[in-house]
């Protein structure tokens, strides 16, 4: 019998190691012609080891090696004071505030819509198809004109980005909460009726508690969508700060390592936010009597 940790983490560790190995090989293969051209332009003699070490330390590689990305992330996180414009922490914070504000707005909107839909048959019939249709529209396509219009109205900075985030992330919450609010057992609803519970009592004592698992499931989906919304909203404005702005600047000036560092920052943000939601979920579940 193998140790359960081995059983659990050996496949994951192997896959990650294999992926990193593939990454190194790909980095060497993709940067090879670049480095060879550079050597031949300078007409210096070169050996195979020179070539390979060159591919792994090129300044503007097509694909930076993992250690270069790690070094760039470390450098831009710890190399500057946290609020300097070259620090990745600063840009992450800018995106994080927009994400969180949009997430809160979107969650409130989604929950309110779900409440309205659950309580009114008219709204369920007339609003629900349009909510679903609104998601068939690639809403990120709206981002640039949204920012232009809001800019013309004198709104800049944080709010337009958050509105786009909110517009993106209200949908999974609304759908999930409609499902959650209607997920209580018919028997329980009938029990509440025999106690002649008002619809408000029914909401607080039955519908909300049974909707909580659905709430957290959709919050986890929504928070990444909100982050995507904030990042994309930073693109068309040519915003001077934020992860999206770093991506755009990196792609304009060919700073591949900077793009990868920004991607790593967004990955860290996404997994951190999901982790926080998961922690809150566990805490709430414990308060509600789960084991």
């Amino acid at each position, binding site marked *: 019998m193998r140790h359960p940790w081995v059983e*659990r983490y050996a*496949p*994951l*560790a*192997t*896959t*990650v190691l294999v*992926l990193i190995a593939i990454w190194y090989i790909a980095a060497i293969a*993709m940067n090879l012609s670049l480095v060879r051209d550079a050597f031949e332009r300078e007409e210096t003699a070169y050996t195979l080891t020179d070539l390979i070490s060159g591919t792994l330390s090129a300044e503007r590689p*097509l*694909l930076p090696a993992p250690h270069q990305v790690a070094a760039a992330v470390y450098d831009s996180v710890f190399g500057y004071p946290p609020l300097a414009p070259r620090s990745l922490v600063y840009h992450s914070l800018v995106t994080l505030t927009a994400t969180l504000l949009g997430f809160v707005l979107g969650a409130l909107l989604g929950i309110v819509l779900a409440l309205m839909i659950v309580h009114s*048959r*008219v709204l369920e*019939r*007339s*609003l*629900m*198809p*349009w909510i679903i*249709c609104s*998601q*068939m*529209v*690639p*809403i*990120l*396509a*709206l981002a*640039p*004109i949204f920012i*232009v*219009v809001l800019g*013309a*109205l004198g709104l800049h900075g944080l709010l337009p980005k958050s509105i786009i985030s909110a517009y993106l992330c209200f949908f999974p919450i609304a759908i999930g909460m409609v499902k959650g609010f209607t997920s209580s057992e018919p028997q329980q609803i009938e029990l509440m009726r025999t106690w002649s519970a008002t619809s408000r009592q029914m909401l607080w004592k039955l519908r909300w508690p049974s909707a909580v698992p659905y709430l957290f499931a959709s919050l*986890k989906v929504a928070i*990444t969508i909100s*982050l*995507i919304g904030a*990042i*994309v909203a930073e*693109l*068309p404005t040519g915003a001077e700060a934020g*992860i*999206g702005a770093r*991506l*755009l600047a*990196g*792609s304009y000036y*060919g700073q*591949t390592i900077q*793009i*990868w560092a*920004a*991607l790593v920052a*967004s*990955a860290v943000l*996404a*997994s951190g936010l*999901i982790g926080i939601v998961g922690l809150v979920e566990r805490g709430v579940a414990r308060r509600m009597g789960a084991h």
Partner: protein
Amino acid sequence: MDPRKLRLGFLFAAGAIVLALLLPSGPRSPSLLPSPAIWQTTACAGLLFLCAAWMANARATAFGLAGITLAGGATLAMLRDPAIAGSAGTGFWMIVIAVWLAAALCVVNLAAMRPLRTDRQNILNILVPLLFGAVVFYLWEVGVRGFGVPPVLLPSPSAAAAKFASSLPTLCTDFVQTFVRGVLIGYAIGCGAGLLVAILAHRYAFLGRGLLPLGNFFSALPLVGIAPIMVMWFGFDWPSKAAVVALVTFFPMLVNALAGLSASGHIERDLMRSYAANHSQSLSKLYLPAAMPFIFNALKINATLALIGAIVAEFFGTPTQGIGFRISTEAGRMAIDMVWAEIALAALAGMGFYGLVALAERATTFWHPSYRT
């Protein structure tokens, strides 16, 4: 709906029409509506609302709808008058309020109806959201033109529709560039690769246990951020968009297909083993059919993700065509009606794509409990 409330509502609507006939509808037209034809149409609508109020039952909806059509048509005709458009008076808004009120009553009335026959129920299920949407578009149109909102901020739906009709060739090339080349090719590659890797991971449990946590992790990442790198690798044309779309659609498909492949029950698996089925036989006869609902779930999620991925990738550089390229340049030139036409195009493409996937799902997984009710 309570007949007394219905009656009161329609009476209010008729009263608003009467007020509209008395109050000025524009700055220069003195009291009555500009032309006798419009005057008569509006008065007719008021009479229809009165009839609806008198009946106050399910049949009142038909009279209400007729009145809404007449009064709505009258307001749209009045907006052609340049004296009214942009500076509409109280009389004009009274008609709009009457239309809105009557439409709300009709929607409520229709939604409360519970016909016994299923085909009528189906018609009703389409009619209610259609009416709701038509009213929203009407209010948008009348509001934008009546208040004279500058078209730079928000064009009226009719202006966007006119732009859509007049620039069909441009829209067509954009559609081909973004949707046919970028989205469809990337979608096919991403979903196909995700499904293949899922089948491999299902065959070799070690691979599966390693890939599943990674797949979950990656499908939660903002992967559209990879777009600038793909543009750098594959150039400005459609291959880079297809690459972004493939990457964005790969992980949802992997995670869902993996869940679906392990969704078949123990009894079925034991049955396959007792038939001495080899792996490819049980794959094609048991695992894949059982995974179909999950695969279609991923296909539906990916249908929207793919379009978003392609449009965002175009923000980072394109040849001079494509939906995303057009949206960002026309927004920069403040040609907002063209932007809305492109958005309508993207919405139509997205809805059509999603609808096709949903139809295919219905045809393939007709045995699933959710379709057998």
